[in-house]
Structures are given as structure tokens and as C-alpha cells.
């Protein structure tokens, strides 16, 4: 008898886009989570509504490693179009489940092969023909549950969550699942070694996606205005605002303390958000790369006219339209320098779903404190996939509204103030907002050259002084943005810097490196730009710094090299971008190869 392999493998489900398999896949993921097993799920979907192949990959990991793996031990396919590729993708010794109406040759004898009577069982279910395609997906849930020993009660809880407790939907789906499980028990002989088993490693966690978390964070951050334009993978962020704002931010008499507007394009979305920010509202927009490109001119206006606004960029792979449903970290340099003229922007880099929530409110605080656009760079993987996460934490500091003067403040100042004067030596000026009735409150916002009183001027000194102050303000931002998280190892020879959704791959790679060649590493996860002194200090401790990124050009390495030219020779890019989340194996091997070439 072969040795069981428990809670440590990957599952991939191949289906046809638009066939409703997402419900089945998320049900599997949630059931495994409910069993206490650390899991991750990645939806590798096409830019299409119906018909193209789509995959969903689940990793179960007793050790808590939840990065995507290339190697698939258990593969399920319902799609003739991807059948050959799916079959080839199974690891030797793995398991291959397929819908038995697909009559294609199977040439492998190093894996276990399990046909599934998907159509037959869907027909046998009591649902209407219209729902048969959907119920067919539950057939593989049932068969997989039986063959991997997934707890059916956990499956039922997952279904109940998905269908919001609606008994009819839960029962009809669960009935197909249990019938299919029974069928598998009677008709399939388990010959592969893969099993799951109850653990206790997910208590204290919930499952959520980054876009929902970002929206909720913004709501707890007092968001008052959001304008957006639909774009994958950012749309669900704004849609989550529309779901949760009415629940959390209406007054007792049902009135709104907020407004969300779907704009006609991204030019307008950011324009509205900046108008609202200028007028004193906590304001944001959310988009992805192509939208960010369109927002460039306005972002420069917000930088120069000093208007608070938060811009979420849920990154997808570019350039151009790129692959709209695939992930990357390719917008870092664009966001950093966005818009013409001299400038760098403030960027927050959430690395987990919980951090999407936290930066959701912190970004609004920072934008108003700094009177500047604050970019938050998430990505498709973080934004749209379900992740295990610590529950969201209520903000631990009050709303920060920045240097804003109302009527009483102006009375105390006898009406004497200057919109663009560095009164406090931190580069951050004072502002008033429309509606202030004090006769000296008004000023004229503009993207043109201005003096300290916001008056148009072409005076060279006034221009340079203003630009110098803006630079000083950016240095103030350096002390206010979230500090990096550092995971030090005593005796570490090299440093690793990464950011965003690559953290699980990096952490696992560090463990693998330690196992493989005994290479000890320390890890800094960057959480914001500009680079703080903590980042500079970390870098000084190592002769080699690997910068891990999901992009082609090593964009953070470029930014760090420019910021610290004397340290630049230390930086080595571990970067790659194929639209999929990075794997630990790739990170490990790339670092090892570079170590050997030293």
C-alpha cells in the first residue's frame, strides 16, 4: 500500500468559462478551510464571458504555505478543449478526474485515472434543464470529496454561505454532491495517495478577497465620495462600496453620508474624485493599469494643486490591454512617476487582505494629511482571489483630516493665512474648503504656476520655491507612510526585498533555501514609497539584496537604484511576469542560480 500524502498538494479544476464552476471551486476551497487546513485558491480565468478554458487551482498546505505551485497532483477536467494539456499537467503518481463524455485518448500510465459520469448524474438530479450545467459542477465536488475525504458537513457549510442560507439551492446542490460521493464510493477504486484530514490551523482566520477588504477599509476610513469606471480586476472594489456603504454609513433616517458615482471614463472618475477631495470630502477612485494611464494628467494636477485623493490600482498585466484577467506588479514605476514634470508619488503596497483593509483607511488619512494623491497598489491575485486572512481590525487611530481651516480658525488668525506657505516647516500647507463662509477663506485652485497665495505667477523664484516645498513635503511623507515589515534571520547572508502579493512565495522560498543549501536570508516586505530610513538601514546590512517582483523589468529595483545609487550594485532582480502569481520554487531557484554565479 502506498503511503498517504495528507494536506500537502495542489488541485486544479479545468472547466469552461461561464459554466458556473466558480461556485463549485469556491465551495471546495471553503470546505477545506472549514476543515482547518491552510488553503489558497487562485482563479486563472480568461477575459471572456463564456466558452474559453478556465482553471481554478487550490493549494492545501499543512505547513501553511499558500503560494501557488506549478505542480498539480490532483487535476479535474470537464473541458475537452484543455483535456490534453490538463492530462499532461498531472504530477507522476497524481490523480486525474475527467468527465467521461470526453472521448479523448489517455496515454499516461503513471497516474491514477478516474472517469466521472458528470452528464449522467446531472441528468439524474431533479433540477430543471436550465440549471443542469451548474449542478454538473457539483458532481466533481462530490466525487472529489469522496476520493480525498473532504468532510461533507464542511462542504454543506460552504454551500450554505454561498447561497446565503437559501434552503432550496443548498439542498439541490448538496443532494447532487452526496449522490456523486456515493457513486464514487461504489464505483471508483482509490489508487492515488492524496488525502485531506481535519486540522486546527485556520481558527482565528476568515476568508475574503482584497477588493472587498479595500472597500471596507475605506468605509471605516470615512470615505465620502468615490467615482469609478468598470475595469477588471478593480470593478469589485467599487461594487463592494455599493454593497457595504448602505449597511454601514446611512443615518437612522436612511440618509447617505456618502456618494458613489460610476463615471463615463477614468478621466472623469479621477476628475470627480479630485473635485470632491478639493471640496473637503474623503475621496477615492479605483482602477487598473489602463485606467491609471488615463488618470495621469489629473494625478499631476492633484500633486501640484495639492488635492487629497486616493487612487487604488488593482494591477493586471500590461502594457496596453495586456491580459486583463492575469496578475502582475507592473504598474509600480508608472504610479511612482505618474504624470509629466518633476515628481514622485506616495504609494502604499498592501501585502495581504487584512492590509488591504488597513490601507483602505490609512490611505485616506495620508491623502488628507499630505494634501496629495496617494496610490494604493494591489493586484488581481490579492484583489479578486479568496485568501485566508486575520479578521479586519477596527482602526486604532482617529480620522486624520490634516491641516484644514474653518471659520473659527480663520477668525483666530484674523483672516490671515496663505494657501501654499510652509508655515510649519514640514512642507505641508494649510487649506480651506468650499462652503467656508469666512470672507478670507476662498482661494483659486489651479494647475498653473502659483505663489503662496495661490495666485497665478510666472515668477521663476516662486516656481522653484514651490517645487522645493513639494519635495520637502515628500520627505515628510517618508516619515508618515507605513514602515516595512522585517523578518530577520540571525546569520543571514543575503537580504530579500519584496512587496504586495508575493509574500507567501517569498516566505516559502526562504524556507526552501534554508533547507536546500542552508542559505539564510532576512526579508523586508516593503509597504510604501517613498523609501523610509528603515529600508535604507536594512539594505546596508547585506552585501547582496534580492528584489523579488512580479514584473519584467525589476521596477522596485529601478526605483531603489535611483534613490540609493551607492547601494545599487547590491541589488539583484528576481523578477518575472507571466500573468500568474509567483511560485516559491521559482523564487528559490532563481536566487540559488544567482548565488552560484556570484
Amino acid at each position, binding site marked *: 500500500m502506498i503511503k498517504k500524502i495528507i494536506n500537502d498538494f495542489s488541485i486544479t479544476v479545468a472547466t469552461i468559462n461561464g459554466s458556473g464552476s466558480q461556485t463549485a471551486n469556491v465551495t471546495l476551497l*471553503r470546505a477545506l478551510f472549514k476543515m482547518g487546513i491552510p488553503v489558497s485558491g487562485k482563479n486563472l480565468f480568461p477575459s471572456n464571458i463564456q466558452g474559453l478554458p478556465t482553471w481554478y487551482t487550490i493549494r492545501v498546505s499543512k505547513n501553511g504555505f499558500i503560494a501557488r505551485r506549478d505542480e498539480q497532483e490532483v487535476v479535474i477536467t470537464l473541458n475537452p478543449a484543455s483535456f490534453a494539456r490538463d492530462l499532461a499537467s498531472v504530477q507522476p503518481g497524481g490523480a486525474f478526474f475527467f468527465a467521461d463524455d470526453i472521448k479523448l485518448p489517455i496515454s499516461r500510465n503513471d497516474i491514477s485515472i478516474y472517469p466521472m459520469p458528470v452528464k449522467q448524474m446531472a441528468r439524474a438530479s431533479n433540477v430543471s434543464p436550465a440549471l443542469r450545467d451548474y449542478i454538473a459542477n457539483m458532481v466533481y465536488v462530490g466525487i472529489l470529496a469522496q476520493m480525498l475525504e473532504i468532510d461533507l458537513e464542511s462542504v454543506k457549510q460552504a454551500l450554505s*454561505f454561498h447561497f446565503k442560507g437559501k434552503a432550496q439551492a443548498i439542498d439541490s446542490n448538496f443532494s447532487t454532491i452526496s449522490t456523486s460521493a456515493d457513486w464514487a464510493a461504489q464505483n471508483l477504486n482509490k489508487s492515488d495517495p492524496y488525502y485531506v484530514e481535519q486540522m486546527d490551523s485556520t481558527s482565528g482566520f*476568515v*476568508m*475574503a478577497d482584497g477588493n472587498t477588504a479595500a472597500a471596507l477599509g475605506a*468605509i*471605516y476610513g*470615512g*470615505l*465620502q*465620495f468615490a*467615482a469609478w469606471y468598470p475595469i477588471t480586476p478593480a470593478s469589485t472594489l467599487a461594487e463592494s462600496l455599493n454593497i*457595504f456603504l448602505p449597511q454601514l*454609513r446611512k*443615518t437612522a433616517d*436612511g*440618509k447617505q453620508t*456618502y*456618494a458613489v*458615482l460610476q463615471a*463615463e*471614463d477614468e*478621466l*472623469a*472618475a479621477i*476628475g*470627480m*474624485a*479630485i*473635485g*470632491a*477631495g*478639493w*471640496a*473637503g*470630502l474623503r*475621496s477615492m477612485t479605483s482602477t487598473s493599469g489602463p485606467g491609471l494611464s488615463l488618470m495621469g494628467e*489629473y494625478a499631476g494636477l492633484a500633486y501640484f*494643486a495639492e488635492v487629497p485623493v486616493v487612487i487604488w490600482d488593482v494591477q493586471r498585466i500590461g502594457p496596453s490591454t495586456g491580459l486583463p484577467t492575469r496578475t502582475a506588479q507592473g504598474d509600480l514605476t508608472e504610479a511612482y512617476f505618474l504624470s509629466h514634470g518633476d515628481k514622485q508619488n506616495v504609494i502604499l503596497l498592501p501585502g495581504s487582505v487584512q492590509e488591504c483593509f488597513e490601507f483602505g483607511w490609512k490611505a485616506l488619512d495620508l491623502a488628507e494629511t499630505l494634501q496629495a494623491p496617494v496610490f494604493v497598489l494591489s493586484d488581481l491575485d490579492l484583489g479578486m482571489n*479568496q485568501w485566508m486572512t486575520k*479578521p*479586519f*481590525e*477596527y482602526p486604532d487611530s482617529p*480620522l486624520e*483630516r490634516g491641516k484644514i481651516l474653518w471659520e473659527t480658525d480663520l477668525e483666530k488668525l484674523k483672516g490671515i493665512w496663505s494657501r501654499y506657505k510652509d508655515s510649519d516647516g514640514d512642507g505641508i500647507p494649510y487649506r*480651506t*474648503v*468650499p*462652503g*467656508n*463662509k*469666512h470672507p478670507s*477663506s*476662498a482661494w*483659486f*485652485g*489651479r494647475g*498653473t504656476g502659483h505663489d503662496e497665495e495661490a495666485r*497665478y505667477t510666472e515668477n521663476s523664484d516662486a516656481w522653484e520655491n514651490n517645487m522645493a516645498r513639494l519635495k520637502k513635503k515628500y520627505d515628510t511623507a517618508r516619515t508618515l507612510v507605513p514602515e516595512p515589515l522585517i523578518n530577520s534571520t540571525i546569520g543571514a547572508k543575503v537580504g530579500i526585498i519584496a512587496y504586495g502579493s508575493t509574500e507567501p512565495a517569498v516566505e516559502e522560498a526562504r524556507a526552501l533555501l534554508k533547507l536546500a543549501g542552508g542559505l539564510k536570508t532576512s526579508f523586508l516586505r516593503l509597504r510604501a514609497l517613498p523609501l523610509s530610513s528603515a529600508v535604507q538601514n536594512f539594505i546596508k546590512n547585506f552585501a547582496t539584496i534580492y528584489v523579488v517582483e512580479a514584473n519584467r523589468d525589476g521596477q522596485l529595483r529601478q526605483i531603489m537604484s535611483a534613490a540609493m545609487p551607492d547601494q545599487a550594485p547590491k541589488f539583484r532582480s528576481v523578477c518575472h511576469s507571466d500573468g500568474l502569481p509567483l511560485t516559491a520554487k521559482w523564487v528559490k531557484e532563481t536566487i540559488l542560480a544567482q548565488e552560484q554565479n556570484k
Partner: protein
Amino acid sequence: MTTPAPAQTNKAGLTKNDYRGLPSTLCQGCGHNSIANQIITACYDLDIVPEEVIKFSGIGCSSKSPAYFLNRSFGFNGLHGRMSSLATGALFADTTLRAIGISGDGDTASIGMGGFKHMVRRNAPIMYIIENNGVYGLTKGQFSATAEMGLNLKHQGINQYMPVDICMEALASNATFVARSFAGDAKQVKELLKAALSHHGVAVIDIISPCVTFNNQEDAAHSYTWGKDHEAPLHEISFIPALDEIEMQGEFPEGTVREVSMHDGSTILLKKLEKDYDPTSRANAFQILESAQLNTWLVTGLLYIDESKPTLTETFNLVNTPLNRLADRELRPEPETIFKINAMMF
């Protein structure tokens, strides 16, 4: 010693000086300057408090002009063609404020056409003035989208394309107030401005405002001479603020005047000229604009009005306090709600 006579004040207790802006840096004789002056007069006459107005503009000669009136009002001179979105967002901060947007024909009918039409279809509460001269002034004399076919400009040659009719575009986008005027007809401009400032929703006023430097040739459709020769007013318009209404009753013989009641209780009086014109019919407006194009008339006056539609901000059911004055506790949900939210996750 004698003290100088106190300056005349309006019901808001303000003098005309309180409505002025910085000295204009536009060309002498520019139509835009006379419009700025009429805005000052209209706001003074309506007793509007300058702190209760916000001004917006895009980029171009026209867009400079918000600096030349209402110095005590907040203003934002934004991006070329993007005034519409900037204003749309800002309107939510304090819905008690009146908004004035100044744009040009390049700013609105070329680069900003999309945003303009969307702002119009949303019925954003703003008076949206287009200072329309058919030419790009600040970049020195290129054709704009409203330039007439056949217009001959010094460095550009002859315009080959049909012009955009901004009023037609506004109507097609379901505008609730559409007017056209001519900077050379100061009285009409002023009365239309008053009506627009009182309108419930978006008020589009396309004002032919000659560019004396680049497009004021006698035969050009945006020149003073052409305007004077071709202006065909639909009516003689006068605006009666809510409080004055009673005094005005019965001044005109029966059947010679049309009254339009405004949402805020004021009235627009339209004195008939040659033909009666009913500005509450969109079909009429389209028809008159079509005839104007065929007959090369400069039709001016109130083309269309509908006071009944909700404005953009009204559709949001906002709290009564201006959003930008809400206290922190009204913006951040209570601590216990976070448990409910976490319980909603799987």
C-alpha cells in the same frame, strides 16, 4: 469734513465691489470680459453671497475668466476639457452652494465633449457657460469644433468641416436648461444668467463671444459684426426673483408675455417678438436650431427649460448637513460593527 456717500449695497449688504475679481488679462474687447461683468451684475442683483458660490473652469482663454469675477468665491481652474468631472465631484461637498462653470468651445466641444454631455445627462446643478468664439485663442488661432464650414483663418486655411452646435448637443443629452446668447447683447446675457443661476439642474448657456484677435472678421460667424447683423432673439427675456413677483403682475397686455415658473419661486418673463416661442418643448428647440442653421440666423434666448427633473445631487438622498462638515463620528462606523462585518466573511 464730509464722509463719502456709502456705496450702494444689495439685500445681502454687499457692494458691487464685493463681486469683482482680479483685473482681466484677456485682450481688450474680448467678449469674455463683458460676460464676466454680466456675471458680477447678475450675482449682485440676485443678492448672492460670494462665499456661497463655487467657480470652475477648464483650460483656455474662457477658462481664465473665473479669476475676473467673484474673488471671494472658491474656484478651481482645472484641466483642459475636464471641468465637468472636477465640478461634478465638488458639487457633493456642500449642496447649498451655487456652481458656475466657465468653459470654451475648444474646452467643451472638442476635448471635453464626452464629459460635457455626461454632466448634462446627469443634470448636475451648475450654470455651465460656454464662451464660444470658434477659435483657439491661447494657442493662437486654430479652428475649434464650433468654427463654421468655410471659415478662413490666417494660418489655418479654410475649415472643411461642419460645426458642432453646442445647444443641439446639450438638448440631445437631455439638458434641462439650454440657452444661446451673444456677448454683444449684454442685457440678454444678464437676464439669461439670472435665470440660469436660479435653474434647478444643469443650465447650459452657449454665448457667442467674439475673439477680437483671431476670429473677428466681419463675415465670420463668431464676430461682433456678424452677430449684430444676424442675431434673431426668440423673445425679450427678463428675470423676476421670487420676492418681486407680485409687483410684476399685470404689467404686460394679455397674450404678449410667456411666464416660466422656476423651482425656487422666481419667474422668467418672455416677451413675444415676431413669433411666439414655447421653451418648454424640446421639439421646438431642435426645430428652431435646425432652422437657424439653414437660414444662418444667430438664434438667441431661452431655447429650452424643464424645472421638474431632480438634480444629480438630489438623486443621492444625502444628509442635510453638507458632507464636508460631517463630524468624524458620522463618518466612521461604530466599533461593534466590525464584528458583524467579520462575521459576514466565511
